[in-house]
């Protein structure tokens, strides 16, 4: 099995690894310790101490905090239980008219606001765009990934997490609370 040093993996993440070295990574059998090295690099790059359980996106992580598993941004902003779509706890800027859409897509390139709205999901901590959706009105936000964290750690990595959480989407439960 191939082995790659952390420095090279870090360069890859930053888009700074030379192309021949990237090709080497692509062509080699995958390194089984990649996940651990990757998480170590990410952990070293954030200013907070909670253990990263899974990098959800390049900026959002599922972390262990006080017996809970929550979604946390690189900047430290927290979004709550990972089983509830984190977008419900984000800021959002929605472009759904010609004026706002044409700021991005002017003239010939403007999509039709009666067919699509552009939703910018923004971190309340650092102001980063975390995701952008382009969907028609009525589309619930995509819950891109609900991991089965316990199956991942116990069955795939062979090291169960100390606690367990039911593999269950909690998004609609929060909506039900909001609807009361």
């Amino acid at each position, binding site marked *: 099995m191939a082995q790659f040093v952390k420095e090279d993996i870090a360069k890859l993440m930053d888009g700074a690894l030379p192309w021949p070295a*990237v090709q080497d990574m692509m062509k080699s059998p995958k390194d089984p310790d990649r996940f651990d090295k990757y998480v170590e690099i990410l952990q070293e790059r954030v200013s907070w101490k909670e253990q990263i359980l899974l990098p959800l996106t390049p900026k959002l992580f599922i972390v262990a905090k006080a017996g809970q598993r929550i979604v946390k941004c690189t900047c430290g902003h927290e979004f709550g239980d990972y089983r509830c779509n984190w977008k419900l706890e984000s*800021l959002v800027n*929605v472009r759904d008219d010609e004026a706002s859409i044409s700021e991005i*897509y002017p003239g010939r390139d403007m999509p039709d606001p009666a067919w699509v709205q552009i939703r910018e999901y923004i971190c309340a901590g650092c102001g980063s765009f975390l995701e952008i959706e382009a969907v028609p009105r009525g589309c619930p936000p*995509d819950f891109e990934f609900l*991991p*089965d964290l316990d199956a991942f750690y116990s069955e*795939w990595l062979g090291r169960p997490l100390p606690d367990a959480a039911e593999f269950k989407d909690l998004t609609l439960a929060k909506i039900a609370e909001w609807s009361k």
Partner: protein
Amino acid sequence: MNGSNGRSLKERMASNDKAFVDTGHLFGLDKLTRKETDPGTYEAVWHILSNLCNAAWSVGCKVSSSPIAAEGGDALWALHTPTGEAICVSRGITAHPGLLADMIKHFIELDYEEYPGFHQGDIFENNDPHHGGIHAPDFDMCMPLFYGDELVAWASCVSHVSDCGSVTPGSIGFLNPDCYSDGICISMEKVGEGDRFYPWYENRIRSRTRTPDWVMGDARGRLAGCLTIREKLTEVIDKYGLDFFRDATKEYVEDSRRYAVGRVKSQTVPGRIRKSQFKDLAMKGKRILLGKQDIDCHFNLPMELVIDKHAAVHINLRGASGTVPFGQNISPVALESGLLMGYSHIIGFDMFNSGPKAAWKVEPPPSGSWANPFEKDFTASSGVAWAPAIMWLSSLYEVFGRLFQMRGFVEEMAAGAATTMTAEFAGMNQQNMYVAGLTLEQASNGSPARGFADGENSAWCLYTPNADFGNAEISELYYPILFLGRNIEPDSAGFGRFRGGLGHTAVWMIHGTTGIEYQCGCAGMRSKVVANHGMYGAYPSVPDRPGYASDTNVKQLIDAQQPLIHDRGDPEKPALSDIVTAREMHTTMIAPFVTPEPLHDYDIIVHPISGAQSMGDPIDRSVAAIEDDLNKGWVRRRVAEQIHGVVIAKAERDEFELDVAATEKRRQAIRAERKKKAIPFKQWWAKEKQKVAAREGMDPAVCTMWRTSMDLSPGYGAELRRFWNLPEGFTF
């Protein structure tokens, strides 16, 4: 010992199915004995067989006549086990190995082994979507291959003919209102024997297609490729032995299944993945064929994957919207074949064959949806069935890109794909010959952004790894057009930290015709909307918006040696209307469409080919990358400054220098501004649910889409209602 043991192929197929259920291994192969005992020969023969298919592709395309196969290579050859599983395939249109495998299995299921029987030199074909074809222009062929008296394999081929006799000329039948308008139908037929087509097969082609010489030429190309496989395969078996061939070919398929499962387990994470996706087909007020087509349609193309703890991938399309009265409905068999192609790019690419199909389970798409039309609407058209499917597949790149990121395999990540907007011409060419056919511009999109770099410009295509848009000069020989431009299109990919590869724009001047139709076709494009591919905070790439002008002043411009149009120009100042005057001037067409009147000499077409999707916040893009793009003319100043947030220190002529410190300051201000402008999701949701309930500002096509999605998938509908707190029974 004979491989059949006296059993029919149908019995062997049933036995294989049972062995897989019983053991979890294809053909019951719990051990890959040939691989383990002689890995060198195993690997060598794999490459020999693969190259045998590629040799067939080279021979077959050269024998073919249409520019689509001969110049674009839009065809594919494959080698199969006696029971149909694809062992290896050539380059070319990789959407088809699944279809070809299923076609052979279907011939076996229909007892063709008993009657009319399978013999050396027999030629079988299908292009009928009701029997597993994708759309009529894709002619699927297979030939049984014998070694001595034993049927040891099948050779297969597909080529995309230039015209299949559908109601409108060409091969991108988006306007077809029903299956009766889809063109010539070859429904699981024996079309030749003794290595020759039956005369009546050719008679039918000559009666019912508009370009019979090309269509028959392509048929001979398919045959030539299959015969190449047969001839070379005999040499391979002579050399390595029939026992080895029988064993190893089955092992290659099981090996590929194991690879796909192993890759999922070692490089992804179990859980549930969801990705919404939509595409428009706006036809209201345009040239149509039947009154029922005077409508706009929107498609819901949802993808949900559940990866279980055994690394099995369960895929469903719950929420897929209803059929449409156009040629954009696809059978589940064809959809799954497309999925095999996507899988071959992303997961199962070590040995591309039927193996990965056993690594997933696809739930039957909602009956009556675009993805499963025939149970409820037998007459639905599949003229260009590929169109919604290819856009659904685009989501596969992004969702697996996300999974690879989670495991740290950044080098494997990809964002979403570009679109497929075609250009076809029908009419008299400069040799006074009737032509109907595709250019190949669409086969060379930008490639998706990667996790560590931008995508490549004009070098990628979802449906064919050739990514070859053909030589301009060859297109000019076939069609009455002259290229005035074929340039990289700035800002044609999404805007993100890593940019999708850019597309290009072809600018054509009509030349040497008494009149020709331009059909700007939908083989998987968006014109009203942008893709839902804002991966990690990138903006999706722009909609497909072609243009044309007829009855122009271009001849006068040429005579006066004035500047001509060579590119698309700024979105707010299109080059077409800036440079050319015309009786009919359309700079921003909503595609797809067919020109209402034929085009004539000196008319102009501006046909953009899309760039791919990006990933990451655009203000995280490196200043050096933006400076480079500015200096190459790949990003316009407006996008660099307003979307990427850079500060230009110096701009002299077309050379730019950026101010890194000032850019960082501006980007901090942008982040603060975003927070100020945005509102908490809950606050937006509270207002938005009222607008949803009132259908406020929603186009009727969007409402129809939601209504059919919710009707056809009640669970999906219930979840949507609960999210927006809509009453039970609410419908759009």
